[in-house]
C-alpha cells in the first residue's frame, strides 16, 4: 500500500506530467510522422496511382540484386562483429577496472569520433597504394596490391569498425550479469573449459548476443555513409540506392517505394528486438 497508492495520487503532479510530452509529440508528429507517411503515400501515387513502383522494384534484376546485397552485407557484418566483439566483451567483463578503462576509453573515442573521419581514414588505409597494401607487400606476403576498397571487403571492414562498440558495450553488460559462481560450479561438476564455454557461458550470453546482433543487423541494413564511400558500384546497398534514385534520378516514386521496403523490414526487426529485450533495456544500452 505504502508506495503505490502514494505515487498514484502524488500531489506534485503538475500538469506538465501528463501534458509534458505534447511539444515532443507535436514536433515528431508534424515533422516526422507526417513526412514519412507522405513519402509512403508517394510510393503509390507518383507518378500515378498504383503499385507500379513496387512492380518495378521487385521486377528488375538490378534492384533485387541491391536488396540481396544489402542483406548479404548486413549479415556478414553482423557475423564478423559478433565473433570479434565476444572475446573483447568477455575480457572487459572480468578484467581489472584500471586496465579495462583504457580499452573502454578507446572504444568510446572511436565511437564518438566523427563518422566521416573514421570512414575517411579507412579509405586512405585501404586504397591500392595505402598503408595496408604497402605493408603486406613490404613483408612479402603479397606481390600485387589487394583490392580492399570499393568492394565487399572494404564495406565489411569499415562497417565492422563502426558497429563494434554497439556490440561490445551491451555484451559486457550481459556477461557481467552472469554469476561467476555458475562457472565455478560447472568446473566442479567436471566441465572442462571448452564444455563450460559451450554449455554454460555461451547459452547464458545468448540473449545479449541475439539482441546486440539484431541491433547491428538492423543498423547495417539502412547504413548509408560507409557503404557509399567504401563500397563499389557493383555491390550498392539499399540506402545508397534510395538516395541516388531520389537525388540523381529524381524518381521520387521509386525511391519512396524502396524507402518503404527498408522501413518495413527495419520496423519488423525492431519489433522482434523489442520482444527480445524490452524497450527499456534497448534504450538503456546507450
Amino acid at each position, binding site marked *: *500500500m*505504502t*508506495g503505490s497508492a502514494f505515487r498514484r495520487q502524488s500531489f506534485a503532479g503538475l500538469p506538465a506530467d501528463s501534458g509534458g510530452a505534447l511539444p515532443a509529440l507535436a514536433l515528431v508528429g508534424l515533422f516526422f510522422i507526417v513526412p514519412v507517411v507522405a513519402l509512403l503515400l508517394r510510393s503509390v501515387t507518383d507518378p500515378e496511382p498504383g503499385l507500379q513502383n513496387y512492380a518495378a522494384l521487385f521486377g528488375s534484376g538490378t534492384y533485387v540484386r541491391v536488396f540481396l546485397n544489402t542483406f548479404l552485407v548486413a549479415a556478414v557484418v553482423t557475423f564478423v562483429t559478433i565473433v570479434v566483439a565476444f572475446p573483447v566483451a568477455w575480457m572487459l567483463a572480468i578484467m581489472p577496472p584500471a586496465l579495462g578503462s583504457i580499452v573502454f576509453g578507446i572504444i568510446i573515442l572511436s565511437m564518438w569520433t566523427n563518422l566521416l573521419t573514421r570512414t575517411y581514414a579507412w579509405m586512405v588505409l585501404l586504397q591500392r597504394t595505402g598503408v595496408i597494401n604497402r605493408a603486406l607487400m613490404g613483408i612479402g606476403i603479397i606481390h600485387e596490391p589487394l583490392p580492399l576498397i570499393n568492394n565487399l571487403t572494404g564495406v565489411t571492414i569499415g562497417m565492422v569498425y563502426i558497429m563494434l562498440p554497439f556490440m561490445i558495450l551491451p555484451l559486457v553488460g550481459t556477461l557481467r550479469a552472469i554469476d561467476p559462481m555458475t562457472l565455478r560450479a560447472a568446473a566442479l561438476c567436471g566441465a572442462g573449459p571448452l564444455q563450460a564455454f559451450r554449455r554454460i557461458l555461451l547459452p547464458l550470453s545468448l540473449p545479449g548476443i541475439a539482441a546486440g546482433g539484431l541491433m547491428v543487423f538492423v543498423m547495417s541494413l539502412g547504413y548509408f555513409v560507409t557503404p557509399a564511400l567504401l563500397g563499389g558500384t557493383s555491390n550498392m546497398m539499399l540506402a545508397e540506392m534510395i538516395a541516388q534514385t531520389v537525388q540523381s534520378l529524381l524518381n521520387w516514386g521509386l525511391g519512396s517505394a524502396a524507402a518503404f521496403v527498408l522501413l518495413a523490414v527495419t520496423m519488423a526487426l525492431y519489433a522482434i528486438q523489442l520482444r527480445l529485450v524490452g524497450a527499456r533495456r534497448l534504450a538503456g544500452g546507450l
Partner: protein
Amino acid sequence: MTRPFLSIRAVRKTFGGFVAVHDVTIDVPKGEFLTFLGPSGSGKSTTLYAIAGFQDPTSGDVLLEDKSLLAVPSHKRNIGMVFQRYTLFPHLSVAENVAFPLRVRRRPDSEVKRKVADMLALVRLDSFADRYPGALSGGQQQRVALARALAYDPPILLMDEPLSALDKKLRQEIQAEIRRIHRETGVTILYVTHDQEEALHLSDRIALFRSGRIAQIGTGEDLYLRPENEFVAGFIGNSNFLPAEHLETQNGTAVVRLADGSIVKGVKATHKLDRGQKARLMVRPEAFRLTPVPGNASLAVEIIDAAFFGDRRRVVARTASGEEIDLRPTSDAAEPDGTAAASSRQIFFDPASAFLFPA
C-alpha cells in the same frame, strides 16, 4: 474534554471500488505521540497521507485547531514529515538540507544559521553539517531527515515507517533518539509502523488499524491487557486461541467448556455471550505455568517440543482435542523442567488473565 488539537473526522478513502479507509475518526491532543499500527494495506498510511495532503480523502475532514486542512495544498500545511525511504536532497549538504524548508520560507540568514545549528545539535549530528547525504549511513540520513522536518517548528510531525529500512540494532538506537526528541520538543507526532514492538516502545497511544478501520485505540497497556476484540488480542503480543463453549456469565465472570470437556471458571467477561454460544478463549503464552497455583485452571497436554531461552522456556504442546499451543513459562527454580518431548502433563493458567471472544 477540551477541544482536540488535531481532529480526523470520518475520513474515508476509496480507490475505485476498493475502500482503503472506512470513516476513521481520531482526536489527537497537543503533544501526543500517536502511532498508527497495522498490517500492510490496513489503511494506516492512507490516513497519514490524507493529513499530509498527498491524497484527498473521498469524504470526511481533517481539522488542525478547528481549521480544516483539506483545502490547503501540502506545501502550505506547515507539517513536518519523515519518509520511509531516505529522502535527503542528494545535491545539498546536511546543513543545506536542514536549511531548505527555512530558505523556501524566506527566513533571514541569521535565523536559518541558528536554527540549522540547533537542529543538528538536537539530532547529534553537529559535526556532519558539511557532509553530503551519500556519505552518511542510513541511520544518520534519517536523523538528518528528522532535523529537516523539525526545522520549521511544525505543529505536527508525521513519520511514515521511518525505521523500516534500518537494521534492528540501529532501529532501537533511533527509537531512543525519537523518544528523546519528542520529550525535548513536545511536538505532536503521528507515527506509522507495522512493527508492534516499535509502537509499544514509542507511543503514548496506539491506533490499531484493520482493513481500513480502527480496531482499537488506546495505550499499549490497553491493547495488550484489555483487547476489545480477537483481532487486537491476536495482533498485539502472542496468543493462543482455544475453542470453547460459553456456559454462563455471572457477576462479570464467565464459565466455559473447552473442547476436551474441561470446565474453566472465572474468565473475565468482556463480551455479552448467550448460553451455549461458541467462543474462543485467548491465553497469552507467558500466562501458562508448569506448577499449579490455587485458583488456576488446568489443561492436559502432550509436550511436542521444548527449548530453554534463559529467562523463559519455550514449549510447544498439544491439547487432547488437537490444538497446538505455545507456552512461555518463566524458567525460575519454582518452575521445574519436566517438559521432555512426548510426555503428557498438566499445565496451568489464571483464568482472570484469559479473554473470551465470540467465535
